């Protein structure tokens, strides 16, 4: 079957992209102004510690050897040591990843449920004043800076009305026995509400517009006309026949949206002091904690790349007419 060959070439492409992004990351963090050793070695380290680190990263060797050592370290999952936290970067990243994923998925699920329903509704109401007014409004939400929307929501619902806390994931002093205990607590959900709402308002435009235009396409297809001729009710035609078929490409776009959302998280997490990967990246760059910044960047890039792959494969799987040329 040609499908296996197509998947094979897609995986080869994945390997190329992974290698290229890892290499760009290496160059980006080594060719910055100043001495790379100064970036990696904290002045408070003892001489032995310094030499140990230098040997580990091979910073005394020529650039190409450093590159090979970097690749070797990466393959072993060794991302280095964070300056500020004095812990392995990997450890720190996996500590923050759940917070980012919860924020991303909760906001995207809200956005997709709303976007799909509203998109189908607007396609159904095509040409009405509701649609005429709604589409420019949706475009406007896409034009908002996400962090600004977060600021406005914070000012209104937190500082003015006092309904929600202003930042973080929990009230200081509250202790939880485990992650599940924390994530299901009222405290955590109240902290999650505003950042998730910010990201959801921004993200709903994509599924909404996609769903609407797919619905408009599907409604013109023969099987929908056939359903109408059979005398099925408007509701049955729209929901059972048209919506189901229009839904597939929208679901595929979910994978792409996860990748985009992760990038948008960088600013929204900063507004709400949400301890996630994006805020950590910003703080690490600002504090010259390069191993941590590099690790956070790599983690975000990995999710983006794998979500792109997932979208491609899903798309090919759902619609066999798409070929991998």
């Amino acid at each position, binding site marked *: 079957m040609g499908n296996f060959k197509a998947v094979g070439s897609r995986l080869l492409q994945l390997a190329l992209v992974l290698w290229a992004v890892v290499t760009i990351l290496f160059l980006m963090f080594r060719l910055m102004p100043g001495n790379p050793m100064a970036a990696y070695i904290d002045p408070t380290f003892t001489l032995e510690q310094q030499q140990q680190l230098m040997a580990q990263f091979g910073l005394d060797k020529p650039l190409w050897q450093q590159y090979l050592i970097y690749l070797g370290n990466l393959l072993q999952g060794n991302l280095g040591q964070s300056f500020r936290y004095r812990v392995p970067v990997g450890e720190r990243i996996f500590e923050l990843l759940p917070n980012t994923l919860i924020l991303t998925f909760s906001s995207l699920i809200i956005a997709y449920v709303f976007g799909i329903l509203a998109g189908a509704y607007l396609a159904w109401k095509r040409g009405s004043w509701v649609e005429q007014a709604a589409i420019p409004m949706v475009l406007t939400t896409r034009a908002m800076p996400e*962090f*600004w929307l977060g*600021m406005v929501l914070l000012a209104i619902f937190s500082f003015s009305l006092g309904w929600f806390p202003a930042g973080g994931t929990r009230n200081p002093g509250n202790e939880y026995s485990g992650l599940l205990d924390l994530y299901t607590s009222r405290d955590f959900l109240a902290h999650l509400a505003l950042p998730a709402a910010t990201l959801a308002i921004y993200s709903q435009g994509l599924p909404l517009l996609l769903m609407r235009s797919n619905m408009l396409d599907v409604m013109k297809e023969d099987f929908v006309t056939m359903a109408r001729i059979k005398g099925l009710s408007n509701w049955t035609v729209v929901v059972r026949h048209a919506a189901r078929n229009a839904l597939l490409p929208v679901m595929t776009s979910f994978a792409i949206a996860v*990748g985009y959302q992760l990038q948008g998280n960088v*600013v929204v997490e*900063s507004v709400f002091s949400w301890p996630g990967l994006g805020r950590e990246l910003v703080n690490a760059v600002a504090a010259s904690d390069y191993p941590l910044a590099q690790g956070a960047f790599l983690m975000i890039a990995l999710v983006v790349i794998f979500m792109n792959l997932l979208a491609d494969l899903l798309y090919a799987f759902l619609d066999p007419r798409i070929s991998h040329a």
Partner: protein
Amino acid sequence: MPEIAVQKPIGIKRPNILARLFRALRLPTNDPFAVAGLLIYLIFIVTAIFADSIATHDPTEILYTPAYDLAADLRPGQDGFIMGTTSLGRDIFSQLVYGSRSALLIGVTAAFMVALIGSIIGLVAGYFGKWVDAVLMRLADIAFGIPFLPFVIVLAAFLKPSIWNVVIAMALVLWRDTARVIRSQVLTLRTRGYVEAARVAGSSDFKIILRHIAPNILPLSFLYGSIAIGWAILTEASISFLGFGDPDSISWGYMLQDAFASQALAKQAFYWFVPPGICIILVVSAGFFITRGYENILFPKLGR
């Protein structure tokens, strides 16, 4: 900046070329939203050019009230400050006016670079095909694997924080979307009769691309350019908000960062942080509306 305005009469001297360019761009003047978008652009361009005479104060100057107190955190209208002042006693209205200048500078240069690089790569990949196409499209795959905002943040932080470095970082990633679309368009154009005819008649590749293919993809380049204007302004705002922006320029993102860091949210100073956001939304959505007008012209099948 007034030097830029002086160069304008070139268009008046040679109306033919300008008129032809306008026709080639196929500006969507029959779509009401697109017209509104073009009007918003026009207002912001005029504001940016005449910022010096519109602004009431120097946007970076620390101001004092007539009673010689620091003019900090004044409400709109107080002591003659139209939109109030910041916590450090700077005039918000003047900052807003000057912000249009950096927004347009960034939007236009980034959009130009993205559209130019993307169009050239798309043209070359689509026209020459084979290994040239394969190499360029793998480069596009790589660009799609780079998380855009983190990439711009890291580059802006490592290079000297300046508007140009933000623009370059954006162009290095964003060409990918334009290039892919232009390439697929060129693939279909390449097989058209008049291109074949030109090739048989002995036209060079360069001439065929420039004379016969490039004019047909110009509206698409412009479409992706106007999308990039919005992206660029939003990105610059995010970068400035995170504190990696150009410290020497007043931008809307810088204003929002200043407001956020100065506790404007807790002080309920809506007059401070709402206007820059509205300006960003207006300019970016103007780009979207123009884009939509274009899509109706370029892809009439899509419907509305």
